[in-house]
């Protein structure tokens, strides 16, 4: 939205395709319009920022051509294929800014497919967008700053949070305090959530090792091992569990953008210059859809990327604004670097995945099947493993299973994660009715 706003201010009339019904993405997700004004939105500290973001499009008026409830399901050359309320449509473009956001980074654990297990992001959306809790006695598991935030939001809303478990070590956070102070107000907020959680008796346990959900037809308990190896069991009726975030970069992939492997994050992401340019001249990238940076970074990058686009069109831009944005982004980058190190990817949870666990939720493929293919059928590359086992072929197209699958293939084949590669993207990026594809 910040990108659209900057382009509109420069006299362009950008088209903004939004898959959702209302602006705000997921971080500032709004309840459905039908919920009316009585719907409560629980943003805490971020209420003012959320309101500001929601107002952007309103203030732009008809200077931005806003197309909600429109799925961009394919990109080919300079043409987009769209699914709208009226069926199929196409849109050609001269320049494209992709701000496609992120989803939770998920890892399999025993019992994770039981009804009642959701991602941390999902637990938060239930609260924000619907005013519901995922359960009455909820356990949260995470490996990122979302964990203290969601724990705080649920506890504040009066839900019984029976456990808040961090799969990363406390020492990693202590080691990063200096870097985290690059964004002092964000750091202070984090401390506030931690303090409030402790006061409410929901102190976060760090360094958590294996976990498993127990239950017949739905979640009944969470069993976990603490840093010293002691096993604990807590009764609950819902679990919110996910381990950081991952970029939704499917359209960048279809656009032909070059991807690079970030070893410290153990993730692939599209290459992006600090100004927002990709390896494809007409395509720009902003926000979590290129690299996880959080809501503030997304706003800054949206504005900065629009200025890069305007420069590329030969238009003059406010150099003062560019310098301010670059300085703010550099500061945020220092903070982000520290935050990523404070919450390192919990590789020990990959080791803990038993052969009988489902890795591919869509198709029900187990870790054992995937490991065997990697070992015995020389499927040491993730697309070959997909072809042999079907992991990644389901409706989610590898969103949920892809990273865990690559880790498992790397382990079983004895190869470095980077060599295992990443799942090749293909259209449609999300399921569409077949009649639309035929149009």
């Amino acid at each position, binding site marked *: 939205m910040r990108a659209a706003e900057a382009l509109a201010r420069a006299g362009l009339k950008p088209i903004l395709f939004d898959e959702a019904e209302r602006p705000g993405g997921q971080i500032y997700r709004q309840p459905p319009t039908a919920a009316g004004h*009585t719907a409560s939105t629980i943003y805490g500290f971020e209420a003012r920022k959320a309101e500001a973001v929601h107002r952007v499009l309103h203030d732009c008026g008809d200077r931005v051509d806003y197309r909600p409830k429109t799925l961009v399901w394919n990109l080919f050359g300079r043409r987009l294929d769209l699914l709208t309320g009226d069926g199929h449509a196409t849109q050609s473009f001269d320049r494209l800014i992709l701000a496609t956001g992120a989803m939770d980074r998920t890892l399999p654990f025993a019992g994770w497919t039981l*009804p009642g297990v959701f*991602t941390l992001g999902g637990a938060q959306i239930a609260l924000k967008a619907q005013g519901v809790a995922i359960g009455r006695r909820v356990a949260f598991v995470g490996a990122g700053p979302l964990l203290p935030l969601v724990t705080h939001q649920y506890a504040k809303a009066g*839900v019984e949070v029976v456990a808040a478990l961090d799969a990363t070590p406390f020492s990693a956070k202590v080691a990063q305090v200096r870097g985290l102070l690059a964004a002092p107000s964000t750091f202070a907020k984090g401390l506030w959530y931690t303090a409030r959680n402790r006061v409410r008796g929901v102190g976060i346990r760090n360094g958590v090792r294996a976990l498993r959900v127990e239950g017949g037809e739905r979640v009944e308990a969470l069993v976990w091992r603490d840093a010293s190896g002691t096993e604990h069991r807590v009764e609950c009726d819902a679990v919110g569990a996910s381990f950081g975030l991952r970029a939704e970069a499917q359209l960048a992939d279809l656009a032909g953008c070059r991807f690079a492997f970030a070893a410290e994050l153990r993730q692939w992401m599209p290459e992006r210059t600090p100004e927002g340019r990709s390896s494809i001249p007409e395509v720009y990238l902003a926000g979590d859809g290129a690299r996880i940076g959080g809501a503030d970074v997304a706003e800054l990058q949206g504005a900065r990327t629009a200025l890069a686009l305007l420069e590329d069109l030969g238009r003059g831009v406010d150099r003062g604004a560019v310098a301010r944005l670059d300085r703010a982004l550099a500061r945020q980058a220092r903070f982000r670097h520290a935050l990523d190190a404070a919450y390192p990817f919990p590789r020990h949870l990959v080791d803990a995945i038993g052969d009988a666990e489902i890795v591919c939720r869509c198709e029900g493929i187990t870790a054992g099947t995937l490991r065997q293919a990697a070992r015995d059928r020389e499927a040491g590359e993730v697309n070959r493993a997909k072809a042999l086992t079907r992991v990644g072929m389901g409706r989610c197209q590898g969103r949920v299973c892809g990273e865990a699958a690559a880790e498992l293939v790397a382990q079983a084949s004895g190869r470095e994660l980077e060599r295992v590669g990443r799942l090749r993207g293909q259209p449609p990026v999300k399921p569409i009715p077949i009649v639309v594809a035929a149009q």
Partner: protein
Amino acid sequence: MAALFHRLVDRRGEPVPFTIDGEPASAQRGDLLITALLLQRTTLRRFEFGPAHRAGFCLMAACQDCWVLLADGRRVRACSTVVEPGMAVLVEGDGPG
């Protein structure tokens, strides 16, 4: 049947009558279909590849776990579809094969 979700904020929205496997149910205007269903049950659909059920996962239209079948033949993603009066959801009626 037990439920997964429970309301923290009662919008006191207009009631939205719908059905689940033919049985009458009620939601509030503004409820997503996933909310409407999980406020009164623990499952959304049968899993196609084994004897299990699913109840959604990410709530942000990414994981594709929450697709439900309607009696009129449409399949909709429950977390991105607002419940409408008269929607006829089939949960146990959506068998494998």
